[in-house]
């Protein structure tokens, strides 16, 4: 890996405010986000839905203009040198980038020609990419006949026709079945092996970020929470983590019961419907697990699985954001409105009691 000469991306104090439309209130999607992406790495942007990941991606791909703040991508300013940025990036949005009626080959050829390749170069590049992405057999089929995983791979291929320096992947595995997700992960790792390419990966899957990202930025409510490699972030949390799944918990009672247990840090109790979770960190997991079980038993609190482990990214998220990460609602079971960009609209669905409300 070459030593980082110029960063692939420098974002400074990005703010994006969406004006309300009709009765919809305005949203402050980004609230002073700053970060730097080193060149040639896989950079993960991790956060719940609505944290501002997609907005960040849209600004960095020149789709959207920041309300204030600046960003440079591949050395060019996204606002003043938009075309230079566009020439240097590939973008796989959450939607599709191909026409379903055209064949895979036609889509890639047209994408290459639009970017300035000669007819023969565009065709050769399209065929090469279809080979690389395991789509050669489907080259002559209309994209509408593709499975979700094939379409996603084709979207990535289409973003690579012009040899971009920075590739943006916005939630590349959302909606894919486990097999297709594993295939996509393999493709991303293959791309990551190239020193010349920086990959910016947006995800709300902890596991995906953990496995793929060399460097990770956790975002929440439009702000940067913490940045580092997954290993460093986990190592920074000393000791082990203890998790207990709770059944119909009364958070106040759980907290009271745990008050007598020594050696616990960062205690978080969350209830969501009939389920709950107790998470804490400790220097001595073997001692703490026994004490926690005894304390819960003594207080008559019902619980299920008890687990002690080395810190995971979930624990990193919990430590820095203050509530557990829930990819399904994407807003954290804390339900504090975190991750909704401050609108509170993204937290719909199951009612969630927050730690704050319970305390």
């Amino acid at each position, binding site marked *: 890996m070459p030593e980082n000469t110029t960063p692939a991306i420098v974002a400074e104090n990005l703010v994006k405010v969406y004006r309300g439309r009709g009765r919809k209130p305005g949203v402050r999607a980004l609230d002073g986000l700053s970060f730097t992406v080193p060149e040639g790495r896989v950079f993960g942007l991790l956060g719940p839905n609505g944290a501002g990941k997609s907005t960040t991606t*849209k600004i960095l*791909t*020149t*789709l*959207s*203009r920041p309300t204030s703040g600046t960003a440079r991508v591949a050395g060019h300013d996204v606002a003043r040198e938009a*075309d230079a940025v*566009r*020439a*240097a*990036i590939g*973008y796989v*949005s*959450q*939607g*599709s*980038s*191909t*026409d*379903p*009626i*055209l064949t895979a080959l*036609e889509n890639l050829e*047209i*994408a*290459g*020609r*639009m*970017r*300035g*390749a000669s007819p023969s*170069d565009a065709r050769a590049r399209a065929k*090469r*990419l279809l080979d*690389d992405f395991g789509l050669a057999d489907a080259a002559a089929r*209309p994209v509408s006949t593709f499975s979700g995983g094939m379409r996603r791979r084709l979207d990535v291929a*289409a973003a*690579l026709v*012009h*040899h*971009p*320096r920075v590739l943006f992947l916005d939630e590349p595995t959302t909606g894919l079945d486990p097999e297709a997700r594993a295939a996509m992960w393999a493709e991303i790792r*293959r*791309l990551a*092996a*190239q020193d*010349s*390419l920086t990959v910016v990966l947006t995800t709300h899957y902890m596991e995906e970020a953990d496995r793929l990202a060399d460097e990770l930025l956790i975002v929440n409510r439009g702000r940067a929470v913490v940045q580092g490699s997954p290993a460093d972030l986990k190592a920074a949390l000393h000791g082990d983590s203890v998790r207990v799944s709770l059944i119909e918990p009364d958070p106040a009672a759980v907290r009271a019961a745990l008050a007598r247990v020594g050696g616990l840090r960062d205690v978080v109790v969350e209830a969501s419907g009939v389920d709950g979770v107790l998470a804490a960190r400790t220097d001595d997991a073997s001692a703490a697990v026994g004490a926690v079980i005894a304390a819960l038993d003594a207080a008559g609190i019902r619980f299920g699985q008890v687990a002690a482990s080395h810190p995971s990214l979930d624990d990193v998220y919990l430590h820095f954001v203050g509530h557990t990460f829930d990819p399904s609602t994407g807003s954290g079971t804390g339900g504090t409105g975190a991750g909704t960009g401050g609108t509170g609209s993204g937290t719909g669905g199951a009612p969630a009691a927050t730690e704050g409300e319970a305390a």
Partner: protein
Amino acid sequence: MTTIAIPATAAGPARAGWFTQTGQVLRRWLIVTVRQVWGPVMSLVQPIIWILLFGQVFRSLGELPQFAPSAGSGTGGYIAYLVPGILMMTVLYSGAWAGTGYIDDINSGVMDQYLSSPIRRSAIITGQLTQQLIVNVVQSLVVLGIGWLGGARYPGGVGGLLVALGVATLLATIFCCASTAIALISRNQIALISLSQLIVLPATFLSTTMMPSALLPDWVAAVARWNPMTWAVELGRGGLSGEYPDAAWLQLAGLVALAALAFTWAVRSIRAYQRSI
């Protein structure tokens, strides 16, 4: 496993020129047209029915002095008078759908792809417009053919036919661009189609599409005089019959100006769309 990128020796491919970009957008939409040809075919059903129904039901109108050859219908009677009107109506009905492709692209994500690429916004608009105009010319030829089978004759000759097709293309440009702009602003298929239908019928009936000005109530005649649909129909009728209206040059200038305005509106709308993301 091989790596994907050939190491970036050059600074990447040169940016494609405007004509190449437009050509590739056109290529995409022509492939779509050929694979979904039922769309343009279906929009021909309506004009065919009109020509056959109106041509039959209103045949006796052709006896009126207002439809005499001097009124611009040549010698073909009412059907010869009607065909240029139906020609322009087809343009309107077909053009109303022009914006739907953009809404599909916005919903699918293809538009985001365009807008994050170094592609000129005017190339996106022009490429798709060109496809629509090509489809429009083919539809116009079919309508003229049906009219001929129905008994209309075109004494204006080949030159006149070309004039009629050219005017239809101008009107199509106005309508397709307006539909595109409304699509990019509303981003809603139903709103787009409802609005188009709302405009098409009054635009048709408040013009000399069906009736010469002399047979229209005064207020309608006054409105019709300033209706671009009237300009297009009368110019087309002039081409087919060989007898152009007095205000032909003014009408043509009006249509050209409107086409330029509509095109500008469409390109601006794509930029406005981007600002709203």
